[in-house]
């Protein structure tokens, strides 16, 4: 061993980042080997918020699982509900009515904007643009107001049900939602005015955290990270589900796949999502908002006092739940972070035998080492923000 390598070895310092550090976007611990300011090795340590949700789901009847899965990725709860409800609907071969398809699409896209706003606010905050947090959370609050208006809850709404949605949107929702969706592109352009020509932001994001498209595919990375590297892979276009085949939207892609492209792709996605929201409101079909199959769907409340049949169905569904024939299904949707898959095994009882979520943050986190190694420790924080992991989803 030469003297030079000995010296170099001596300079390596191991630093522990997290698990409780605001820049880790959740309870993530990073064990970082630093040489001066350069990251030479990196080990993410996860599991701090593992609460065994998948195991708990096996002890609940199908309709009681919905609030559990919502709490995995707590920023994109509508997507978790859709993944689970969609999987169960495929298991029992239940078609949801057109109005429910549009309402679900509408809320998913509002949730996508919400998720990207949380990402943009916190990540810009990491990079020193504190004002972005307030602007982003101002718009986020409007989305939460819309959620509260339609569902009664601001977060973890339990709005999607097996067969449709729990209730119709209230009077006045459409106008309020439309006003928001038409305002959103203007707000996005204001964010861009703040960031796109900001010298600090540009020098912190341009050319940092690059991982090639081929490598991202090997690592299973999906979502805005993959699209920023120039691959227009979006499950909303690739596979038909909900109302996505019937609405028009574009898939923003990047060119080099650095942190700046990731920022641009997500910001452009917010505008596209706002377009989808408007189209859903325009084309919202009339009709029932939940399927009319009494074996799986609660009867309308008004019938309970007049119809014995309905009362029996209600009682059976609430006490035991519905049974599902033995089978298994994997259903995946495009969440704000990539492919969110839900794998459900039914064993003939009223409880699922296995519920597994393929969480995009969990898989995408594997690319973080390659994004951050041999960059400055400050760029590591920027890359982590642009990766946008939600640790509730990673640990489940």
């Amino acid at each position, binding site marked *: 061993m030469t003297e030079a390598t000995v010296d170099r070895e001596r300079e390596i310092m191991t630093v522990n980042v997290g698990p409780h550090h605001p820049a880790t976007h959740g309870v993530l611990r990073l064990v970082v080997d630093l040489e001066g300011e350069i990251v030479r090795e990196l080990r993410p340590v996860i599991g701090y918020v593992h609460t065994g949700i998948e195991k708990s789901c096996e002890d609940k009847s199908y309709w009681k699982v919905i609030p559990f899965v919502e709490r995995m990725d707590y920023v994109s709860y509508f997507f978790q509900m859709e993944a689970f409800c969609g999987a169960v609907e495929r298991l029992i071969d239940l078609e949801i009515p057109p109005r429910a398809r549009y309402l679900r699409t509408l809320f998913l896209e509002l949730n996508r904007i919400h998720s990207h706003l949380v990402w943009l606010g916190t990540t810009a905050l990491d990079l020193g643009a504190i004002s972005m947090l307030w602007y982003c959370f101002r718009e986020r609050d409007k989305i939460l107001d819309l959620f509260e208006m339609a569902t009664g809850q601001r977060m973890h709404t339990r709005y999607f049900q097996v067969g449709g949605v729990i209730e119709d949107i209230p009077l006045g929702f459409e106008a309020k939602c439309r006003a928001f969706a038409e305002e959103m592109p203007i707000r996005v352009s204001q964010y861009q005015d703040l960031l796109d020509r900001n010298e600090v932001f540009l020098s912190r994001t341009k050319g940092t955290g690059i991982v090639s498209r081929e490598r991202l595919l090997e690592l299973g990375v999906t979502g805005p990270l993959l699209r920023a590297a120039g691959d227009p892979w979006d499950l909303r276009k*690739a*596979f038909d589900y909900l109302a996505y085949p019937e609405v028009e939207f574009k898939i923003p892609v990047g060119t080099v796949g650095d942190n700046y492209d990731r920022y641009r792709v997500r910001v452009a996605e917010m505008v596209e999502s706002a377009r989808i929201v408007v189209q859903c409101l325009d084309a919202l079909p009339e009709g029932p908002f939940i399927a009319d199959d009494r074996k799986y769907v609660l009867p309308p409340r008004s019938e309970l006092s007049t119809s014995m049949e309905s009362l029996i169905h209600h009682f059976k569904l609430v006490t035991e739940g519905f049974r599902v024939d033995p089978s298994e299904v994997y259903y995946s949707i495009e969440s704000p972070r990539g492919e969110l898959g839900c794998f459900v095994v039914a064993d003939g009882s009223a409880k699922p*035998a296995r519920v597994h979520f*393929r969480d995009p943050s*969990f898989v995408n986190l594997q690319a973080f080492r390659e994004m951050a190694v041999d960059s400055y420790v400050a760029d590591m924080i920027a890359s982590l923000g642009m990766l946008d992991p939600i640790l509730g989803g990673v640990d489940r």
Partner: protein
Amino acid sequence: MPDAPGLELIRGEIERDCPGAVLATSFDRAQAALIVDPARVLDVLRWLKDQPGQRYDFLSSLHAADYLPAQPRFAVHYELINRDRVERIRVKAMLEDAPPAGQGHGLPEIDSCVELFPTADAQEREVFDFFGIVFRGHPNLTRILMPDDYVGWPQRRDFPVGGEPVTFTYNEARYD
């Protein structure tokens, strides 16, 4: 998705190149699945990944399930996508509970596919963590979400829910 005849065609072609590797097929709820011999799972995955005209080269998810009381008890599922044709296929390897007593660690084993699909790294660790399925050849097969000193395989169906004492000391020594 390949449709039911398409799935049989794929099975026939695999049968020609790797005889006996595919044990059965299943086409259920419009989802195509190949049930393979766990000892040959890498042959099938490699064929699906590299065969010209197939190219199921994106592993979107790897997970496991416990079908207790059925035998064989465990299954490891590989959800593959052909991104050109936009088709999914599932490869399913059924695993017996454990080798006879007195041999090895008493856990079911299967070959790791990390060489073929680097994305499987964390997901195989997760399956090991929760089901105690050992992936032969995995570079770092340790627990990923549960504490390092945890005893038991919590997602197995015979593992009870609840009654868990909570400790917070498990990782004190590891990175000192």
